[in-house]
């Protein structure tokens, strides 16, 4: 295979503030072959996006690049600005994360696609428009002729990303760089985008550099894998070798941290990613590594190989994935006696939501139109159980959580510990609400930035009438200890916390009122995989100790399967499947549930993976989800 792109000791340093440039990426060597996909994988802060921007030289002012970027026969680092501009868009196509903001909101998509074609080919407007039409068809947008003059906001998330891909393909580039193109998309849609990229790269013999934080999504599609940690390559090689036998402890832990269907315990990595200014001198993973030796902390290990992948680890030859699992997976504590009885009963719940009035007269008086967000939802939740609520965005799963929390008005009944909220008096209702707690998706949003952590955690205590700050802080310290944080954090402000720490604080606060139920609304979706694993394990342990009940709301059926005793699948505001987790996951009855399960990461038999390629390239669910998407488009753009 001929290499389209070769990175030769690429290093990037960025200027932060007034100081001298801080190294973000060090000595990365990587190749992308024609028609193949190389996955560049790393958690946030690993430097993967800097790498992609370094290749096309769109780094912020004051950035320093060293090493070579070889595109075919040209070294891009030696080109002048005008020459570089001719490479961008013509030889290298870019697809970015979050297409809604990456496309110009006030320009028709057809014009945005035509613009790049005209620029590099000098063709007429008419020819460029015809090309844009062809491209929209090629990336799978239904009725492309009708959509050419639409604006980006009129497309659904997946369709927008297809538009981005069409734009990147306009000049038939040799290399496509896709920077987290599937992040923020629902799993089903993400899989379709990947399948599309795989088809396109084969048809056009185009190299793809796929940048992602999610190893599981590239498992079936990548030819090469390259793992970055804190700005350095830790392991790289053929994807098959990597997924069969990862050698670096970080790669092993990262793979073990991804929730898969049927998993019993997730691997977790302690500690945090080091900041670029404070990276350790030796192996950068050493401070968090269970197998570190004295030598690891002083010198960066030389790359080594046993015939499979290349890894930068002194002990890579001896450590197996099983060792890692033993070393960094804590065994779950014994399950406490589960309390019998029903914690929550939801009976024919329905929620309407309001939106700006469509009629003139209603607009004048400020009336709103009503739409049904949830319809006819019934289920029960026992003490000590975890109910997983799964669905795509817009399925109404968060709305269900808010209704149970009594945050929004609803029809139907919510019965908490035998008593219906509808029948409660004001004061009683307030006390009952206090015992259903919530942990939100964005941990920073859920903590008041101007309050000390001690006061945040102790706020529920204060509101339930415990007086004296000292007394409250003592209890807050105990709560922090339960979620694995030090009491030294009490006087700090949330601004200095990492996402995972902030989420622990939110959990500690939720525990303060000794709740019966905690509603977890996508608690890990803004966190890195390794942090997610830590948090899910913590939540599981807490439930085992206390007989707490959870309502875990998530788009990720695999994460839910790891936690839940029962699973409820929502689609379009209706409960399409409900039952014990084992039954639902093993024998799904509903088509939609089947699709969700098919799209989730599995433990696949190794042998079956050998057949990776043509057969599963366009999976069955692809066509069906295209229908979902058009339905969604209609829903949002009446």
């Amino acid at each position, binding site marked *: 295979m001929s290499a389209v792109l070769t990175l030769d000791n690429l290093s990037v340093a960025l200027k932060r*503030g*007034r100081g001298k440039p801080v190294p973000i990426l060090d000595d990365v060597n990587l190749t992308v072959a024609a028609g193949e996909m190389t996955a560049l994988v790393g958690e946030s802060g690993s430097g993967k996006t800097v790498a992609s921007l370094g290749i096309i030289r769109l780094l912020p002012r004051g950035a320093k690049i060293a090493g070579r970027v070889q595109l075919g026969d040209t070294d891009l680092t030696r080109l002048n600005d005008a020459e570089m501009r001719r490479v961008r868009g013509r030889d290298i196509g870019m697809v970015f994360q979050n297409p809604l903001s990456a496309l110009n909101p006030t320009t028709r998509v057809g014009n945005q696609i035509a613009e790049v074609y005209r620029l590099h080919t000098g063709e007429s407007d008419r020819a460029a428009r015809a090309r844009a039409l062809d491209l929209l068809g090629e990336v799978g947008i239904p009725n492309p002729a009708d959509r050419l003059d639409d604006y980006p906001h009129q497309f659904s998330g997946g369709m927008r990303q297809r538009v981005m891909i069409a734009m990147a393909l306009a000049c038939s580039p040799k290399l496509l760089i896709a920077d987290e193109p599937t992040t923020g998309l629902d799993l089903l849609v993400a899989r379709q985008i990947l399948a599309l990229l795989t088809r396109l790269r084969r048809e056009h013999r185009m190299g793809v550099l796929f940048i992602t934080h999610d190893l599981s999504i590239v498992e079936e599609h990548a030819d090469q894998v390259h793992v970055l940690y804190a700005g350095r390559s830790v392991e790289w090689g053929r994807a098959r070798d990597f997924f069969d036998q990862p050698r670096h402890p970080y790669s092993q832990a990262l793979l073990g941290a991804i929730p898969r269907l049927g998993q019993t315990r997730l691997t977790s990595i*302690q*500690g*945090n990613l080091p*900041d670029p*200014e*404070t990276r350790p001198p030796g192996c950068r993973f050493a401070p968090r590594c269970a197998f570190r030796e004295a030598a690891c902390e002083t010198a960066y290990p030389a790359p080594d190989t046993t015939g499979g992948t290349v890894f930068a680890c002194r002990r890579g030859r001896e450590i197996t994935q099983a060792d890692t699992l033993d070393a960094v997976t804590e065994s779950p504590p014994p399950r406490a006696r589960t309390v019998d009885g029903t914690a929550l009963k939801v009976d024919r719940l329905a929620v309407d939501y309001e939106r700006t009035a469509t009629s003139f007269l209603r607009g004048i008086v*400020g009336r709103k139109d009503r739409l049904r967000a949830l319809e006819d939802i019934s289920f029960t939740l026992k003490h000590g159980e975890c109910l997983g609520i799964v669905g795509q965005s817009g399925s109404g799963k968060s709305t269900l959580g808010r209704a149970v*929390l009594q*945050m929004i008005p609803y029809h139907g009944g919510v019965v908490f510990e035998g008593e219906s909220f509808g029948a409660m008096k004001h004061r009683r209702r*307030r*006390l009952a*609400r*206090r015992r*259903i*707690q*919530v942990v*939100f998706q*964005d941990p920073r*949003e*859920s*903590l*008041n*930035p*101007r*309050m000390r952590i001690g006061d*945040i955690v102790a*706020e*529920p205590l204060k*509101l*339930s009438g415990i007086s004296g700050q000292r007394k409250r802080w003592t209890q807050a310290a105990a709560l922090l*200890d339960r979620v*694995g*944080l*030090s009491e*030294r*954090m009490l006087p*700090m402000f949330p*601004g*200095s*916390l*990492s996402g995972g*720490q902030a989420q622990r604080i*939110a959990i500690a*606060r*939720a525990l303060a*009122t000794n709740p019966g139920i905690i509603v977890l609304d996508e608690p890990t979706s803004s966190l890195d995989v390794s942090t997610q694993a830590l948090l899910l394990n913590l939540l599981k342990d807490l439930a085992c100790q206390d007989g707490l009940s959870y309502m875990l709301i998530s788009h990720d059926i695999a994460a839910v399967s790891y936690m839940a005793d029962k699973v409820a699948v929502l689609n379009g505001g209706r409960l399409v499947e409900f039952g014990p987790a084992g039954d639902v996951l093993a024998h799904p009855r509903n088509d939609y549930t089947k699709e969700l399960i098919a799209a989730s990461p599995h433990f696949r038999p190794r042998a079956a993976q050998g057949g990776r390629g043509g057969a599963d390239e366009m999976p069955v669910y692809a066509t069906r989800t295209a229908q979902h998407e058009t339905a969604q488009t209609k829903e949002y753009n009446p």
Partner: protein
Amino acid sequence: MSNSLSQSLAAPGGMLRRSAIERASIWIGDRGTLIAGIALSVFVLGFSLVGGLLYHASPYAVHGHHALQPPSAAFPFGTDQIGRNELARLISGGYATLIVSIPAAILTFMLGIVYGLAAALGPSWFDKVLMRLLDAILALPTLVVLIFFAALVPLNDFSLVVLLGVTSWPGLARLVRNEAIAQRGRDFVLATRQFGGGTWYVARVHILRVMAPILVVNATFLIGDSVLALSALSFLGLGVQPPHTSWGGLLQTGLNLIALNPWWMILPSGAMIFLAIMAANLLGQGLLARFGAAR
């Protein structure tokens, strides 16, 4: 586990230290603005409020033989058309301006917060009513409303404070309302409500606390606006009334005699208005950057 986490926080060069460095660098960058604002405020306040104690010349005494004279040793800022000492008048005009502007700004501040919070935290129909009303009020320029009422009520310090106060709040009210609505929907407020935090508690502990920097910054801006509004009114002859003087009034006198080129009657009074507003704005900008960095 708790050990490793707290270690990574307490370790030299951990997250804490980096944020401290970042803060410092931002702070140094904007320190100039803040210091200039403080220095200028001290100067304007000192000149107007303490100046009279140090410079004893009377602003009312008429020196008939020295009418309309440019600056000299006896009269550092010259004299006006009937021979009154311009420097003394500038000081007394500053006193008259600030003694009305600052209380008026405080009144505006309180009215704006009360109205804005009432709209944001009350029932939604109440918010709609208040906001429709506010939209209509905002369509009328404050100065025009001021002129309207100034033409009708007897003008003195007290009535001017009330007048400025009750006409200037709509802008702040809208800001407070929008900001409070944004805060009201944030997750930490929802969490507090779940613990049983009532409207008043949420307003006091969460919304006002988070908004405090914005409010402080706007309070300083309000003082600048208030000085400008009073000076404009006085310039139009509808503010501080003779024989009392004010910066706006001094400027108007200069303008009336403009054919005689009395630059010493125009530049100092105008410059003082400029400096007072500049002081407030620099202070506000500096504080904004300071709070922004601390966020």
